[in-house]
């Protein structure tokens, strides 16, 4: 039972984090988000232009899918990979001594050990959802399975 509650809590937490992260990026101006990504000095201009268009919507859709519980292990795996990519990009920028905004949840938050640690902690619920198998309750997956049976 406690595993089920933990599983549900991880889903809600991770889903909400991604939806909120995507929302803050859409709420900021697209140029502001572009400036933030460009400050990392990791992508060429065309890469920044595409990242601005894709990342906020990807985060929102991913958050909604995680909340729904559809193919949760796959989506949790994808979320973990996305988080890992963000953390690596932040770590490289931080190690190079570039003073850039994290851009994780809006603007004005510089990359620091604290932001790196915080984002790394987000991997925990993703790994939990990826590796701990459970019979899902209150998920779209369970509803669709029930409909098939």
């Amino acid at each position, binding site marked *: 039972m406690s595993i089920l509650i933990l599983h549900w809590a991880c889903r809600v937490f991770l889903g909400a984090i991604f939806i909120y992260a995507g929302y803050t990026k859409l709420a900021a*101006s*697209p*140029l*502001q988000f*572009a*400036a*933030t990504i*460009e*400050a990392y000095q990791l992508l060429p*201009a*065309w890469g*920044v*232009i595409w990242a601005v268009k894709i990342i906020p919507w990807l985060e929102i859709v991913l958050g909604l899918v995680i909340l729904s519980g559809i193919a949760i292990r796959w989506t949790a795996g994808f979320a973990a990979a996305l988080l890992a990519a963000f953390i690596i990009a932040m770590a490289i920028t931080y190690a190079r001594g570039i003073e850039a*905004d994290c851009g994780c949840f809006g*603007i*004005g938050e510089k990359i620091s050990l604290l932001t790196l640690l915080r984002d790394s902690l987000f991997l925990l619920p993703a790994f939990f959802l990826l590796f701990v198998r459970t019979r899902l309750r209150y998920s779209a997956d369970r509803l669709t399975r029930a409909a098939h049976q």
Partner: protein
Amino acid sequence: MKTGRSWIAIVWLTLLALLMAGDRTPAQNTPPHYAGGSPGAPVTIEVFSDYQCPACRSFYLETVRPVIGEYSRGNRVAVIYRDFPLQMHTHAREATRYALAARRIGHDLWLRVSDALYAEQEVWSQDGKIEPVVARVLSTEQMTRVRKLLQDPSIEEEIKKEIAHGEKKDIRSTPTFFISVGGREQRVVGGVSYPILKDYLDRVLK
């Protein structure tokens, strides 16, 4: 008793309304100076910049200048430059004084001096020798006039007004720019490269 309370409430509300009205009174702003384009352009970019800030240098030389070259000639984009010398940059204010003095002689001289200050920022920001950099792009006569204008206290007043205008717009770092399209203003903290700004401008100017 009830009438007394009503009067107190009315007085309080009046005071509150006066205070709020006071907040909304617009402060005297310095007029905008167009580095490119003119009023009436469909897109306006207002940049708050510091002559000694390295990010402002690359934003001006690598992004704003090409934007002026490609979009301001047909007045599709107007570019306003505002001075916001940061205290952490010891020579920024002096550089601003030179630029403003040059602007009082002529708009083109302001642009010429701004170009020189940004282009040779690495040199003068080290040794603080701004005058030789400015002198290189002005004639002897123009330089004499600039030196005279530097003594004018109204130059310092103008800088203070520009800084006050920036503070009112909550500028905390440079470059920060505002891009206005169709009455909608976006705030961008930090610079962006030319291809990114061009992609944005091409989309909004379609």
